[in-house]
């Protein structure tokens, strides 16, 4: 499970390199997120645009990553592909996260 990370002022943008966050990689994803977000950035944007499939284990791992950041920092999701969006919508987890169709939308919302 590979993540790439870059800093844009107070924003940290973490992109998932890979097409699946499923049961096979959920723990690995959680550990990689923990390591990647060991920064003081108040806002982390998770770019999911390469991810085509997520299951409930992957969803749980994203929730765990948000909880690990704590309430003083926020995890924002960007670039949800159709099946990923479906999982967040059906579980109503889209009401817990800031969710944006594209990375640019997420950046614009942070700049506003």
């Amino acid at each position, binding site marked *: 499970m590979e993540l790439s990370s870059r800093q844009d002022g107070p924003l940290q943008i973490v992109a998932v390199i890979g097409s*699946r966050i*499923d*049961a*096979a990689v959920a723990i690995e994803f959680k550990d990689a997120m923990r390591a990647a977000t060991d920064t003081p950035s108040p806002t982390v944007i998770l770019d999911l645009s390469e991810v085509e*499939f997520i*299951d*409930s*284990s992957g*969803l*749980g*791992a994203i*929730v*765990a990553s*948000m*909880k690990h950041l704590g*309430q003083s920092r926020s995890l924002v999701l960007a670039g949800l592909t*159709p*099946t990923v969006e*479906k*999982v967040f919508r*059906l*579980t*109503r*987890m889209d*009401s*817990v996260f800031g969710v944006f169709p594209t990375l640019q939308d997420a950046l614009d919302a942070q700049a506003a």
Partner: protein
Amino acid sequence: MTSAPTIPEVHISVTSSEMAVRDALSKLLTALGPLDLDVEDAGTVELVMAEAMNNIVEHAYPEGDVPGPIRLACAHSDDGLHIKITDSGRPMPDGTTPVGRPTNLDVDFCDLPEGGFGWFLIQDLAKEVEYRRVDNDNQLTFRLPVGT
């Protein structure tokens, strides 16, 4: 009159593991190719099948048990895909499938759920979900209203 595309019944068998679930999903979606499912319906199939098989890997053949077979049968008809998933692992604890209630999100930040979504997604997307213990096998059957 043109008839809707159809496919022969699909049978896939793998030995229980998280990577085997990926393998089975990929084989199933390839076999369903001629149905030309749209992205929404293909997502429904992959999601429900992933959740059902992940449950088998985690609970029917838990770590420490010898991994056994997971067998899928999928038949296409007018009202969708009729699925049967069979394994020879431990039975469902209460002899039935969990109800799959939506998780409660009206909770404190630190209590937000990190699991318990799987059966909700299955029950929400699949129709006529039934579980049977037959001899030493678990049989889960349901219909996915796609490719109609």
